[in-house]
C-alpha cells in the first residue's frame, strides 16, 4: 500500500514474477502501475505489504539496493544525465574498473557497442545524451537495464515512443532474456504488444489488484472490462452539438526538427481529436499555437484574426485557452492555493482601481470551483494537496474562467480516476454544445474515438490522417499513427 498525502496511489497489489516468463501489467492511467514499480525499485517506501525475492522477504531503502539484488527498472520517465556520454549513462556507478579502480573506458565502450548491436541500433556511444530523441533516450534506458544483467527486469512503458521496427527488436531481446531464465515485467497500454509478447497478465484499477490470468485464457474485451470496471460507452457522454464556422485555423505550421507543415481547422461547437503516439509532436503543435513555443513558419488564426508568434497573452485575449499535458509542471502552481491557481490567467481582469485583492480572487475562484465541483476543504488549500482529478478540474477552471472561444486540451484525463474522467468528458461535451471549439489531444484511443467529431492523426511531426467520426476506426487511426514512412507515402 502506498499513499501520497490524501491520494492513495496503490491500495493493494499482488503480483508474482516467474523466472523465464514475461508478465504484463496493465491498467488505466493512474492505476498505480508506476507506483508499484517504484516501490519494488526502492524509490518509494511502501506503507504496508511485503516483497519477496526468491522466497526471501526484502525491503529496499534505495534504488542502489534493488540494483544490487538484481532488479533492473526502466522508468516511465527517462532518467539520463544530459551532459554525459551515452556510454557513461549506461554504466554510471558500476563502470568496469581495473585493479586500482580506474575506469576501463575501452571495455565500457566495447560493451556499450555490443549491447547496441544486440538491439540493432546505431547510436554513437561517445556523444552526449543531450539532444537525443525520446526514442533514442528510451533505447539507452533499455541498454542500461540489459547491461545490468539482472535477474528481474521491469519495463514501465518502454515502447511508448518506439516505432514498429524498434519495438520488434526490443521484443526479440526480451524474448532472449526470458529464454535465459530471467523474470520480466512489461507495462504497456497497447494490447497488441501485450498479446504478442507476454505470458501472463495482471490488471490493476484505481490502485487495486483486479486479476491475473495466463494470456492465452483472456481477451482484449475481457481485459478492458477489468481495467475500466464498467461499460466503456458510459465513459463518453457525447452530446449533439451544432457545428458552426471555422474558429481556429492553423496553416502550414512548421518547427524544424519537431513538426512540419501542420494545417487544420477547428469549428465552433466541434470537438477535434488529435491522436498519435507519444513523441509524435502533438503537444508541441499545441504549444506553438498557443505561443509558448516558437515556430519558424506558418500562421494561426482565431476567428479570422492572425495571432502574433510566441505571445500567449495575445492568444489568451483573442479567446484561446490551452490546458497543458503536464498539469503538475505546466498547468498548476502546486504550492499556491486553489483560488490563486484558478485566477492566475484572469488576474488582470479582477483588479479594482489597479489593485488585486484576495477577496476578488476568492470570489472568482469560488464561482469556478463550484461550477466544476472541485473537492477541496477551502479555497486557500495548496493545490498540490488535491487529488489528480481535482487538480485537473482546477486547471480546467482556470482556463474556462478566461471564457475562451477555442479550448485546446492536452491529455485532459491523464492520471484521473474513472469517475472524474467521465465528468471531464461530459464537461467537454457541454462546452462544445455551447459553441466552443475544442481541440482534444489524447493518447487514449477510446477517448479520442468516443469524444471527437473529427480525428486528426500525427506521426513524427506530420499530420498523417484525418477521419470524420464515422470513419474513425481504431485500426485506421492506429495505422496512420504507426505505419512506417514508406508505407504511408
Amino acid at each position: 500500500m502506498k499513499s501520497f498525502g490524501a491520494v492513495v496511489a496503490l491500495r493493494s497489489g499482488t503480483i508474482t514474477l516467474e523466472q523465464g516468463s514475461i508478465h504484463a501489467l496493465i491498467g488505466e492511467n493512474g492505476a498505480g502501475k508506476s507506483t508499484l514499480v517504484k516501490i519494488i525499485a526502492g524509490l518509494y517506501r511502501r506503507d504496508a505489504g511485503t516483497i519477496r525475492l526468491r522466497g526471501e522477504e526484502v525491503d529496499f531503502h534505495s534504488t542502489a539496493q534493488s540494483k544490487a539484488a538484481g532488479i533492473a527498472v526502466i522508468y516511465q520517465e527517462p532518467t539520463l544525465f544530459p551532459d554525459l556520454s551515452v556510454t557513461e549513462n549506461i554504466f554510471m556507478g558500476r563502470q568496469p574498473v581495473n585493479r586500482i579502480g580506474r575506469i576501463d573506458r575501452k571495455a565500457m565502450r566495447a560493451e556499450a557497442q555490443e549491447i547496441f548491436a544486440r538491439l540493432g541500433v546505431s547510436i554513437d556511444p561517445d556523444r552526449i545524451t543531450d539532444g537525443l530523441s525520446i526514442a533514442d533516450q528510451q533505447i539507452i534506458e533499455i541498454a542500461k537495464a540489459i547491461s545490468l544483467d539482472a535477474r528481474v527486469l521491469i519495463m514501465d512503458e518502454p515502447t511508448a515512443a518506439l516505432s514498429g521496427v524498434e519495438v520488434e527488436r526490443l521484443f526479440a531481446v526480451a524474448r532472449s532474456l526470458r529464454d535465459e531464465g530471467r523474470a520480466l515485467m512489461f507495462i504497456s497500454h497497447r494490447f497488441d504488444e501485450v498479446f504478442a509478447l507476454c505470458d501472463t497478465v495482471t490488471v490493476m484499477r484505481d490502485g487495486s489488484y483486479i486479476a491475473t490470468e495466463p494470456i492465452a485464457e483472456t481477451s482484449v474485451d475481457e481485459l478492458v472490462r477489468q481495467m475500466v470496471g464498467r461499460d466503456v460507452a458510459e465513459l463518453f457522454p457525447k452530446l449533439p452539438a451544432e457545428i458552426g464556422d471555422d474558429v481556429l485555423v492553423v496553416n502550414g505550421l512548421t518547427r524544424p526538427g519537431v513538426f512540419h507543415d501542420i494545417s487544420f481547422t477547428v469549428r465552433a461547437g466541434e470537438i477535434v481529436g488529435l491522436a498519435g503516439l507519444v513523441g509524435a509532436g502533438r503537444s508541441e503543435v499545441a504549444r506553438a499555437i498557443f505561443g509558448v513555443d516558437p515556430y519558424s513558419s506558418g500562421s494561426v488564426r482565431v476567428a479570422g484574426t492572425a495571432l502574433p508568434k510566441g505571445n500567449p497573452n495575445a492568444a489568451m485575449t483573442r479567446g484561446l485557452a490551452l490546458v497543458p499535458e503536464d498539469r503538475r509542471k505546466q498547468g498548476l502552481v502546486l504550492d499556491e492555493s486553489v483560488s490563486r491557481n484558478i485566477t492566475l490567467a484572469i488576474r488582470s481582469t479582477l483588479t479594482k482601481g489597479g489593485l488585486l485583492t484576495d477577496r476578488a480572487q476568492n470570489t472568482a475562484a469560488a464561482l469556478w470551483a463550484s461550477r466544476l465541483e472541485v473537492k477541496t476543504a477551502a479555497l486557500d488549500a495548496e493545490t498540490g494537496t488535491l487529488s489528480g482529478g481535482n487538480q485537473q478540474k482546477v486547471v480546467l477552471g482556470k482556463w474556462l474562467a478566461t471564457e475562451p472561444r477555442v479550448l485546446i486540451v492536452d491529455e485532459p484525463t491523464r492520471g484521473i480516476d474513472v469517475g472524474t474522467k467521465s465528468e471531464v468528458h461530459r464537461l467537454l461535451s457541454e462546452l462544445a454544445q455551447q459553441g466552443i471549439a475544442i481541440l482534444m489531444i489524447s493518447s487514449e484511443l477510446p477517448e479520442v474515438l468516443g469524444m471527437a467529431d473529427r480525428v486528426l492523426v500525427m506521426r513524427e511531426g506530420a499530420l498523417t490522417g484525418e477521419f470524420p467520426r464515422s470513419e474513425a476506426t481504431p485500426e485506421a487511426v492506429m495505422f496512420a499513427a504507426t505505419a512506417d514512412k514508406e508505407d504511408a507515402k
Partner: protein
Amino acid sequence: MTATTAPPAKPAQPGSSAATRIVSHVFKARETGILIALLAVIVVATTVNPNFLFSSDGFRDLLLTPSLLLLVAVGQAIVIITRNVDLSVGSVLGLTAYLTGRLFIDIPGIPVIAVFLAGIAFGAILGLINGALVAFARVPALVITLGTLYIYRGINVAWTGSDRINASDLPAAFRGLGTGQILFIPILTIIAVIVLVIAAWVLRNLRSGREFYAIGSDPDAAHLYGLRVTRRILTAFVLSGALAGLSGVLYAARYGTVSSAAGTGLELQAIGAAVIGGVAISGGVGTVWGAAIGAYLLLTINRALPILGIQDFWQRAVVGALIIGAIVLDRVLAIRQHRKLIEAREDVR
C-alpha cells in the same frame, strides 16, 4: 577573446582511429581555447617587456602567483560540477593560514608536515560543516556558504585580534617552501600541479569522480539511479575545504604575514577561474584543468596589465569582462551545438 572561440567539445565521429580522436578531442576541447588565450597574454606581455618571462623572477612569479588560486579553484570546480557553490573558501583560507602561524608559535619545533596535515584537516572540517548543512538540510549552497563566509571570517578576526602572524614567527625552512624552487619550478607550483593532476585523474577515471558529474548534470536522475548523492556532495565540500586549507598553509609560507583579512574576496576569483575555464555554473560540465588554466589566465592578466600600460585599477573590470565573455561564449556554443543536433535529427528523418 577571439582566441577562446574554439569549437565545443563534440563527440568524435564513430569509426575514426583512436589517435585522430585524441588529437581532434584536444583541438576541440573548451580548455584549449582558454589555454591559447593564456599563451597569447604571456606572448604579448613578454614582447612588451621581455622580463615578464625571461627573468628568473618573472618566470618564477608567472608560475608562483596563481598557484594558491589554482588549488582553491580546483576545489571550487568540483563543488560547482555537483551543481553547488562554495562562497566560504576565502574565509577558510584565512582561518587555516592563521592556524598555521599559531601552530608554529604555540608549539615550537612542530614538524612542517604536521602543520600541513593540520591545515588540510582543519579546512576539511570547515568544508564538512558546509557540506553537511547543504546535503542534509537540503538548503542551497549559496545561502549556507554565504552564512559560513561571514561566520568563518568573524571567527578569524576574533581569534586573530591584533596578533597577526609575522614572517619572523615562521621557521625559515617553512617560508622557504613559499619561495623555493626545484629546477627553476617553484615548490608551491609543484604542489599545486600534483594536486591538480590527482584531482583531474580522479574526476576522469574513478567511479566516484564521474558521479560528481552525474549529480550535477541531473540531481533527480542521480537519485533515481541510486547514486549516493548526499555522500558525494559532502565529499565535494570536504575536498573544497581541504584544498582551501592546503592553500591557507601555503599562503602563510608564501606571504609570511597573516592578518585576519587573508584571503578576503578569494571566493569570487575562484568561481571566476572555474567559470572562465568552462565549468558550467549549472553543474555537470567542465574539468579541473579548465579551472586551473582559468586561474592562471586571471592572475597572469592581472600581472600583465601594468606592463601593457593599463593601470592596475582596471584589473577587476577585465576579470568581470572575462567571466561574462566566457559564459556568453559557452552559451553560444551550446546553442550552436543544440541546433546541429536538431539538424542532424532532421536529416535522419
